[in-house]
């Protein structure tokens, strides 16, 4: 199906409800529909045309067109196409019919829409707060343009003692609270398990405890070329994915394309990141089920990969490589043989550890048949990455929507038919090997040439847009950019893969035992947020002291010295 056919079908079915069509490229279409027809149009896309819901972006366009724009973004994977359904809502009555009853994957997206922009989804089954803190004042919506960046309400305002309205525990169950601090949950989120004995009957989730408001920063405090560096800090593990995705999106909105060599470098780093992320995850997954040997060995094998990162970019993590239009550092020709040599070593060790894990029957016994996510359910919840590929669905943004250099060297999409925790483990492990293969290919085939586009426009007109997905280790990261004035976007929407995957958690752990909850959560490699500082409070005196980066560095260096001296 081409975009023309798609638009024809929609016009035929909905007639005048389709108000306008904007075709950015043949694979990216934005359809403006009357607010009343949003639900049927989205349902037709989802049910009849097999589109997959990605995310909702709400935009405050009051200054430009006097309305709030709500963009539901869909992907038609077989046709390699993105479809955005836009509805404009008048500011005086900021409500829109909820699509969640028809498109279940929009569950969180519509909760967030109200939280940050104040557009209410009418008929949403669970309209509780998702992102903003419990004591955030009612009626203050941070992504509206009249709220200035940094202009946050004082702590302890009118809602100071508000608490989250948890789901009541079902009859005959008791509550086990997991988090916000839990040994295997490195990041702050709270899960309430309603259990009967050891069996989980139901659960409720509250996250976003350290929401940092990066989207707001992007559209009010940063410029186009500053955003990649902040985007890279969205995640401490797959940061490069976010900066690459943002750059590809912004390049598209500006109508430019990074040179081939730059795209190869991006792909190369994306694959390196996948390997070290998967090995990191393997270690953590092993730790979760008490298998610390896997943790230690996986992380030992991971070390040469971090060396590779440092060799190419100058940093083990958070490389600062991407800019809109290309990358900042080239890979010198003379290090290429050395890189290939290290890649061989990494492959040898990774294959050994992967074989040891895949051949382990006890591990398999522990993981098989647990955390089942059948194909239909995976489709309905629109989960992404190894989580969906473990349910036997070959969804991979690198193949479905090729970016960077994947159009020239397509990777093999790895799936597994078991739909359980074991399947997700196997998919990740095999992907690691596949990524190593890609790196070798990529290093060999990398073309010469510039690494930065020369045709970057001086002035970027407002109201341009771009949308891109990048396959992160955990699944697709989605970036959507709408250009604005002031050398910065009017809206920069980011959806990290865990956002979608976590919504499947209640389904995954229902009727499992408490013992299987951590590994089921771990099997989708959740990544909530990362915090950058530590506060130490002396409970006796009440004194508090914040450890900043310098102090933490000093402390960890001292600890290393102590260990060496022993």
């Amino acid at each position, binding site marked *: 199906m081409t975009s023309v056919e798609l638009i024809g079908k929609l016009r035929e079915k909905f007639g005048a409800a389709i108000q306008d069509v904007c075709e950015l490229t043949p694979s990216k279409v934005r359809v403006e529909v009357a607010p009343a027809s949003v639900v049927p149009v989205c349902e037709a896309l989802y049910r009849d045309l097999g589109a997959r819901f990605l995310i909702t972006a709400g935009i405050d366009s009051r200054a430009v067109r006097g309305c709030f724009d709500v963009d539901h973004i869909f992907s038609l994977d077989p046709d390699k196409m993105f479809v955005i359904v836009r509805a404009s809502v008048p500011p005086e009555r900021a409500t829109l019919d909820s699509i969640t009853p028809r498109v279940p994957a929009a569950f969180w997206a519509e909760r967030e829409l109200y939280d940050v922009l104040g557009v209410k989804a009418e008929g949403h089954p669970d309209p509780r707060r998702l992102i903003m803190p419990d004591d955030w004042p009612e009626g203050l919506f941070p992504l509206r343009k009249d709220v200035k960046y940094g202009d946050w309400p004082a702590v302890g305002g009118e809602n100071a003692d508000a608490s989250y309205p948890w789901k009541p525990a079902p009859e005959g169950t008791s509550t086990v609270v997991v988090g916000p601090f839990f040994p295997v949950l490195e990041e702050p989120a709270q899960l309430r398990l309603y259990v009967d004995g050891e069996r989980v009957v139901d659960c409720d989730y509250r996250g976003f405890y350290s929401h940092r408001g990066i989207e707001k920063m992007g559209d009010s405090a940063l410029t186009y070329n500053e955003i990649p560096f902040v985007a890279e800090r969205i995640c401490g593990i797959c940061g490069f994915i976010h900066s690459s995705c943002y750059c590809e999106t912004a390049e598209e909105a500006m109508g430019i394309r990074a040179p081939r060599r730059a795209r190869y470098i991006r792909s190369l780093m994306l694959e390196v990141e996948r390997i070290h992320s998967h090995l990191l995850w393997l270690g953590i997954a092993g730790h979760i089920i008490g298998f610390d040997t896997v*943790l230690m060995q996986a992380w030992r094998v991971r070390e040469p990969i971090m060396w590779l990162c440092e060799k190419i970019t100058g940093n083990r993590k958070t490389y600062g490589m991407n800019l809109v239009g290309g990358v900042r550092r080239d890979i010198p020709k003379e290090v290429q043989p050395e890189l290939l040599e290290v890649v061989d070593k990494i492959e040898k060790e990774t294959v050994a550890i992967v074989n040891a894990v895949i051949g382990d029957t006890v591990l398999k*016994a522990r993981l098989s*048949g647990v955390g089942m996510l059948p194909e239909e359910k995976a489709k309905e919840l629109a989960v992404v990455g190894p989580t969906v590929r473990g349910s036997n669905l070959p969804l991979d943004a690198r193949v479905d929507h090729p970016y960077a250099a994947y159009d020239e060297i397509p990777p093999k999409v790895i799936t597994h038919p078991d739909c359980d925790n074991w399947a997700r483990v196997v998919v990740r492990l095999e992907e690691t090997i596949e990524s190593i293969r890609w790196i070798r290919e990529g290093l060999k085939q990398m073309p010469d040439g510039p690494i930065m586009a020369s045709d970057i426009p001086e002035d970027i007109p407002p109201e341009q847009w771009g949308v891109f997905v990048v396959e992160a280790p955990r699944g697709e990261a989605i970036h959507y950019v709408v250009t604005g004035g002031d050398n910065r976007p009017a809206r920069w929407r980011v959806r990290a893969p865990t956002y979608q995957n976590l919504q499947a958690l209640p389904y995954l752990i229902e009727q499992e035992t408490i013992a299987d909850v951590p590994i089921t959560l771990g099997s989708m490699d959740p990544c909530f947020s990362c915090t950058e500082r530590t506060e130490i409070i002396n409970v006796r005196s009440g004194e508090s002291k914040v450890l900043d980066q310098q102090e933490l560095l000093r402390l960890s260096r001292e600890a290393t010295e102590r260990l060496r001296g022993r």
Partner: protein
Amino acid sequence: MNVTAQMLSGIPGAILAVVVFVGLAPLAEGLLRKLKAIVHSRQGPPIIQPYLDLAKLLIKEDLAPCTNWIWRMAPALCLGGTIVLALFTPLGVRPAFGFSGDILVFIYLAAIPSIAIILGAFASGNPYAYVGGSREMMVMLSVEPVMSIALLVAAIKAQSLTFAGILERSAVEPSISMGVAGLAFLLALQAQVGKLPFDMPEAEQEIMEGPFIERSGPGMALFRWAMHARLMIFTALLVSIFIPWPHVANAGLSMLLTLAKMAVVLALVGVVDVVNPRLRIDQSMAYYARIGGRVDLRHCGRLRKDRPDDHQQTERGDYLLQGGQGHAALSLQTARPGGELPRPRDRGCREVHRVRRVCGGVPLPLHRGHRSVSRQAGPRVLPRALHLLRALRRGLPRGRRHRHPGIRDRHQ
């Protein structure tokens, strides 16, 4: 021949037993940690680290969530029970305190530390502690029958209910039934001492050390110490009863030899611990139910006559006891199938209810794919351990027998 030589009689013997089983236990733990570190490619903590940990905990403040007397008593009861148990434990020679029937006293006493842990857990009121306590109970109920049967096989073979008698006979008369019982005891040891893949009562990553979640300071230290000592006691028991060769007349030499053999067994326990993930509680229960079922008492010829229907392991246990010394059933009675079940009032009770069904050989209606899964998990724990150890060794990639076909193809 002086195989029945006593450690030392009376108070000096008791002191020696406490020094060996309780005093040296943290050292054994430290060695195990070192072993673990080697497999992990780590440097590891110093061997005396467990002593330092205990010392640190002992001088720290005790943050108690409640003032319940059961809560306060539990750590002392746990370590105290373990110390008393040590006095009845043979170390290649007769235990410090031995008398007719001491083997039965031992089996009873062996339950006290676990019971203290369970009571302390339930008294704390923490939901994780509840889960941990009920898991501890399930492990206890599934492992104790196996250990008791193994010990009683030894008792029947020796026609004696004292450790002294068993030590005297087992050394001179190796037999198949003793071999089977010893193997069962070895497999049960892993769970009895709370090592992977059977450490689910604590399961730091699942239930945050379960029964001990609310513990801190001295209370924690006593529990830890008792757990370390438990490792020594049951290993010593295994070595003394089931691996008595070569037996030497000199009591001191015999003790040293036993300690050396214990080091080998502990290393085995440590290796299994380090190369296995944690199983689920239902998998481990099914595992021990099977082991219990395999200790076939038909090897004990004199019990063959007049046996009631025996395809349920606990029945065998009971019968064995009656046949042996006309004694009433021990803790096995708790796990006896059939009969009136108590109404489940709380979680703990409900778990007991489930345990009964497992131990009675009735399939457990638990999990999707549960039965086939646990069947896989079971007896291969040891061979798998060795394979994995080989595969993960630093030099890597050797031993790829279980290699995944897809990956081999791509690797070439």
